[in-house]
């Protein structure tokens, strides 16, 4: 193919579908019990140097408990898909667990402001950066999910965003138009948080999917954290609701409130006060160290973290906020 234009950014992963096939061929297709502790799942499936992707959307249905555990286990030299990453990136930056990143959206927490910690780490020179966009990374996951080396898109042309990416512009042989080829992205390991899963890994979630279905299909290793385990009979009673089939999944970890302090649709809203505390405490190195010791390094698990930040009463508040119960009271 004649390449009209191509980015000079580094491609961190091999888009070769035959190499991915050789790996996927070895994955176990049996219905086996994959339930394990999150500590064990992260120790077993997140290896130093792996390329990591995190499901959800920044602080929405995001496996925050897993991000804490990855930092707690002091993983190093990870690659990271900075795809709609917000609080997840803030946590991973605090642990400096990654040294290369595909950027779509980073550093910011949307309307909440920017993370000093993420920004400091991104400006430290310790991180290799390739630039993409939200759709570009979603398209790269789609290509991997399809088992092809790329998919075409029509964004980024004419910008520095493509110049610092690893995409290539070619001429469409059907229309003569320019299209951008987005190379397949097969993360080594991903973590996705869901509402319900069975012990084999069949998983359901409610609300927006973001890019999680393609992410699940594209990932070589996949850890599912779930608000609760359900029976396989319940999964099979309504197979139309299954979003992630079991054979993609390596570990199933039951982590109630696993997206806290983020938002879990229909279950609990985000803890904005705690997220503001993160953003402010980051500005003071001393305070931030103490904050991390309290909330991550000093906790054995997510349950302890929640206990230190309001516990059951706080969860009740956040559930009421998610369900907008106040509007019912006032009306």
């Amino acid at each position, binding site marked *: 193919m004649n390449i009209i234009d191509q980015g000079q950014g580094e491609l961190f992963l091999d888009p070769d579908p035959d190499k991915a096939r050789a790996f996927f061929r070895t994955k176990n297709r049996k219905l086996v019990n994959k339930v394990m502790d999150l500590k064990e799942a992260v120790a077993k499936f997140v290896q130093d140097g792996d390329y990591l992707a995190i499901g959800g959307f920044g602080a929405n249905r995001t496996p925050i408990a897993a991000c804490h555990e990855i930092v707690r286990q002091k993983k190093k030299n990870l690659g990271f898909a900075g795809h709609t990453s917000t609080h997840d990136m803030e946590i991973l930056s605090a642990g400096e667990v990654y040294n290369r990143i595909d950027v779509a959206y980073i550093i*910011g927490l949307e309307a909440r402001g920017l993370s000093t910690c993420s920004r400091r780490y991104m400006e430290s020179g310790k991180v290799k950066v390739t630039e993409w*966009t939200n759709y570009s990374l979603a398209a790269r996951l789609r290509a991997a999910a399809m088992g092809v080396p790329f998919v075409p898109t029509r964004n980024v042309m004419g910008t520095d965003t493509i110049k610092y990416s690893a995409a290539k512009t070619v001429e469409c042989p059907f229309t003569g138009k320019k299209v951008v080829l987005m190379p397949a992205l097969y993360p080594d390991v991903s973590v996705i948080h869901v509402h319900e899963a069975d012990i084999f890994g069949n998983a359901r979630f409610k609300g927006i999917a973001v890019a999680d279905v393609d992410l699940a299909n594209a990932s070589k290793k996949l850890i599912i954290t779930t608000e609760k385990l359900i029976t396989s009979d319940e999964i099979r009673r309504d197979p139309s609701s299954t979003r992630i089939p079991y054979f993609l999944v390596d570990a199933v970890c039951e982590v109630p409130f696993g997206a806290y302090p983020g938002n879990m649709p229909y279950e609990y809203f985000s803890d904005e006060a705690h997220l503001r505390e993160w953003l402010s405490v980051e500005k003071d190195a001393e305070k931030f160290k103490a904050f991390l010791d309290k909330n991550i390094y000093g906790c054995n698990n997510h349950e302890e973290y929640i206990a230190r930040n309001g516990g059951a009463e706080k969860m009740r508040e956040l559930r009421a906020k998610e369900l907008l119960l106040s509007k019912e009271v006032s009306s």
Partner: protein
Amino acid sequence: MTDYNAMEIMISVAARELENGATVGVGTGAPCAAAMLAQKTSAPDLVIMFEAGGISPNLPEMPISVGDSRTFYKAAMAGSMNDIMEACSRGFVDYTFLGGAQIDMYGNLNSTVIGNHANPKVRFPGSGGANDFASFCWRMMVMTPQDSRRFVEKLDFLTTPGWLQGGDSRANSGLPLDSGPYKIITNMAIMDFEPVSKRMRVISIHPGYSAKDVQDNCSFELLQAAAIAQTMPPTAEELRLLREEIDPYRYVIGR
């Protein structure tokens, strides 16, 4: 004369640009407030879409995130990012509102870095969905304060496409045909783009500001429309809706 602040007039002006029955891809903050105001005034059938997957929600309050539960509250559909971006790519989305650290005379935006990319002076979030929306949606609008450090001669990094280098450059770029920047709304004025050169052009100035004020707060030369209008200030009703219904805690419109 009704009393209002810069954010309130920007949001009111932006809302008026959205005709009834149009589709708009919005982020959090001012763009979302503008879309909500439009729904409560001239565009009850305005269809709001959020890049994370929310389609046509009945927003109970302003979202904090374009992916939080509010973005698909009583929505027509809670879809995926690809559902939204592919709808944009297919030409189903008419408008989007974007912002950035820098904007140039062709409406190109920088939200990536100040300084050079290898070791930037300042690192920003990057494109997010901005480049995608600006590439795919028919008409891209920007709400931003009028400031010489924002309105620059040359961007440090061209994150998101406007009219690129002007003239036919966008038409020849490979980006979807006939899409591009439409209006730039600041605290001082409304700008569009001169059809041939695709250079930014002042078409309306807000009460209390002069053409000189606008140019003095822009680092490149602004074209002037043949007839420059005076912007209609926010109406009492627009202000009431913004202050009482849309943003009662003044997260966006401030105090």
